[in-house]
């Protein structure tokens, strides 16, 4: 058992709409670039929102169908390869700890349903259910298939955990991994979170909830957290991987931590199925619990990586909540989602990686597309241009659709 409650991060990997890999993603984020573009994966006729921050795989060229499950595996696998190479763990012997995977629900997509139906002997679902066994389909669409595939690929130990807390998934996965190490159940954890839900039905569902931006004439400026003209979030894809280790395990093998997970805090909101309590009380508790778990006072936080979705409600509530916790002059706050959109299940993990890079390089990533201040939001949002700053501790917020709020404290030192 290690003496410290902090968990070392010894490897990171990223796949974002800004690029494959940490170097390209981070450079483009600091340069204020946008990864949002018109959707080319499927037809967007008759849709209210026709853009997203999707990640196209080479296999998709020529309009070929690659399922969300296979894209998930590709994004997650790529991020994990990068993180393992950095950590110097894994390889042929396998990874010496369990897999914790944050992911969206996987389903049999409409494309697959229609293809299956064409082969069925009877109409409708009765025909689908009785259609011949489709091992290739089952091996990607069963809820257990994605964690099983990744666990086998990276040789992780024990049973893989796969989980979802909607937009807070990435943080929840890190918390579960952190607890496994704190409780002495694992020395290290391969923690991956990925999102691959940009497909027709998922886009329509979020669109029907009126949660998405409809700025079709200017996709790259559609994600504008904290700006007065924000009109919804932009769906995105991506993956992040963190290799998490106990301090003792990292030290014993001579691994140099990139940074530390200092603690986490949660609180669930029973206000409404899709809306957080507008008074911000639940997110205030989640932030305070993260600070308390890490043993950090609010004034010791140098930067806040916001949830910052660009929806009218979230950004206002988050601003109010931050003021409640940090007083009249909170530290600088910016939203990575302005550049990369909202990669629901992956966003918390991607933002944790960007937070660690913020600490490493002393550079605050900007909130791009910020032009019209919202009188209800009085935060320093690091508008449009990255800024140099000494950063030792970061609070990263993730507030889930469905009321699951999770906050993470990250630091340069344990």
């Amino acid at each position: 058992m290690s003496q410290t409650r902090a968990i070392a991060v010894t490897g990171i990997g990223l796949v974002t709409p800004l690029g494959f890999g940490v170097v390209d993603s981070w450079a483009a984020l600091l340069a204020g670039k946008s990864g949002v573009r018109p959707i080319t994966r499927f037809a967007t006729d008759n849709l209210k929102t026709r853009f997203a921050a999707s990640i196209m795989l080479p296999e998709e060229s020529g309009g070929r169908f690659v399922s969300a499950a296979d894209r998930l595996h590709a994004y997650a696998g790529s991020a994990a390869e990068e993180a393992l190479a950095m950590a110097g763990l894994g390889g042929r012997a396998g990874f010496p700890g369990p897999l914790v995977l944050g992911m969206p629900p996987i389903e049999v997509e409409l494309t697959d349903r229609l293809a299956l139906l064409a082969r069925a002997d009877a109409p409708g679902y009765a025909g689908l259910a009785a259609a011949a066994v489709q091992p290739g389909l089952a091996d990607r669409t069963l809820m257990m298939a994605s964690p099983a595939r990744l666990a086998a690929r990276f040789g992780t130990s024990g049973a893989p955990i796969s989980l979802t807390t909607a937009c807070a998934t990435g943080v929840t996965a890190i918390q579960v991994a952190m607890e496994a190490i704190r409780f002495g159940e694992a020395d290290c954890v391969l923690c991956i979170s990925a999102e691959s839900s940009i497909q027709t039905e998922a886009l329509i569902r979020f669109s029907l909830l009126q949660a998405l931006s409809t700025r079709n004439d200017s996709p790259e400026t559609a994600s504008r957290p904290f700006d007065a003209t924000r009109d919804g979030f932009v769906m995105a894809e991506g993956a992040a991987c963190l290799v998490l280790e106990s301090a003792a395990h990292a030290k014993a093998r001579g691994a140099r931590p990139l940074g530390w997970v200092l603690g986490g805090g949660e609180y669930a909101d029973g206000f409404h199925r899709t809306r957080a309590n507008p008074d911000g009380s639940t997110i205030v508790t989640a932030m305070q619990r993260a600070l308390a778990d890490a043993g950090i006072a609010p004034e010791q936080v140098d930067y806040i990586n916001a949830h910052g979705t660009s929806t009218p409600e979230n950004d206002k509530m988050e601003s109010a909540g931050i003021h409640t916790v940090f007083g009249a002059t909170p530290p600088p706050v910016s939203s990575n989602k302005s550049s990369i959109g909202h990669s629901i299940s992956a966003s918390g993990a991607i933002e944790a990686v960007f937070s660690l890079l913020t600490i490493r390089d002393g550079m605050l990533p900007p909130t791009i597309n910020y032009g019209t201040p919202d009188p209800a939001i009085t935060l320093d949002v690091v508008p449009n241009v990255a800024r140099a700053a000494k950063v030792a501790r970061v609070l990263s917020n993730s507030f889930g659709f469905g009321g699951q709020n999770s906050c993470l404290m990250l630091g340069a030192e344990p």
Partner: protein
Amino acid sequence: MTAEVWITGIGLVSSLGEGAAPHVAALADPGFQPVLDRESFAPFTIHPLPALPFETQMPRRDLRQMETWQRLGVFAAGLALDSAAAKPLAAEIDLMVAAGGGERDVALDEAIFTEITAVPPAERPAWLNQRIAGGLRPTLFLAQLPNLLAGSITIVHGVAHSSRSLMGMELAGADALRLALSRVAHGASQMTLVGASLNPARWDELMTYGTAGLNLAGAWQPVAQRPAPGGFCLGGLGCFLLLEAADHARARGAPPFARLAHVGTGMARREADDTAAASAATLFGKLRDRLRPGAAVLSAASGVDPAAEAGFLATTGAGPIRHTGDLIGHGVEASFPAAVALAALQAQAGLAPQTLVSGFGAYRGEALALVEAV
């Protein structure tokens, strides 16, 4: 040192009915015959749910926002909290849910299947966009998100200290219990509500498992007698357990149903030497010393390849073996929690002072738990 963990609340609903009595009666009856529906989803057999008084656990406006699997889960969660007299403490209770895929709008899907045949292929993508956007009800989409069962439990019952939803079929149920037990044992939680639900009357679910060859083809048979490759018969289940630190329960005067002494999980690749039985044998090594002679066995085996688990159980020396699939059907995510709930009920009823709960997942995943009378 870790803390002793009790099961102080149980909410259980199945084809047998609601609460402890019908389930204890079934456990005590060697000649028990299950409740089956062979017609509604023919050729598949399900263990159907009885009509349930959902409105006793949730307001009508919330009922309308949920499909059956969420209603079942919220209902069972409420029963568990009631049985532990813990509803007033809900804000301090942690939540761990094992969730499957939410329910699709099957009627809309089937309308699309029919109508699309009349649309020229080149026009189908644009037509589909319009048809789905015009046909889907937003509230139904919310029923499709796995984490919204947890969300609904928070909204209806106020369970709010933390909320995590695991996915991954049977293993999700077992790992939800394992993580919950670990958090309470290590003092990270004083009380955790953990469980799952399954609505078997769903063609979309039967389709998903049909493509994997997991549904039992042909007539219902007891789990142990299903010829290879076997298969499962889905059973309606809502099951939540309140796990509580023994000291916390004593301090508030909450009696235990049983002690949850151990939960272990693993995942074999199920190829070559990496078999489910070998994975289970490794898990068994971690609780072997605590198993007493004559311990009962409750198997949550799905019915897919039942011989693999039978072979493993034969090596443990434990017995006699009951299969929960024979009593209440297979509840996928809810199966393992339900087996642990049944083990706790038979401990409390004096039927078995110690039960080894075993669960081999239909596709992947192995789990063992030890439940003891306090």
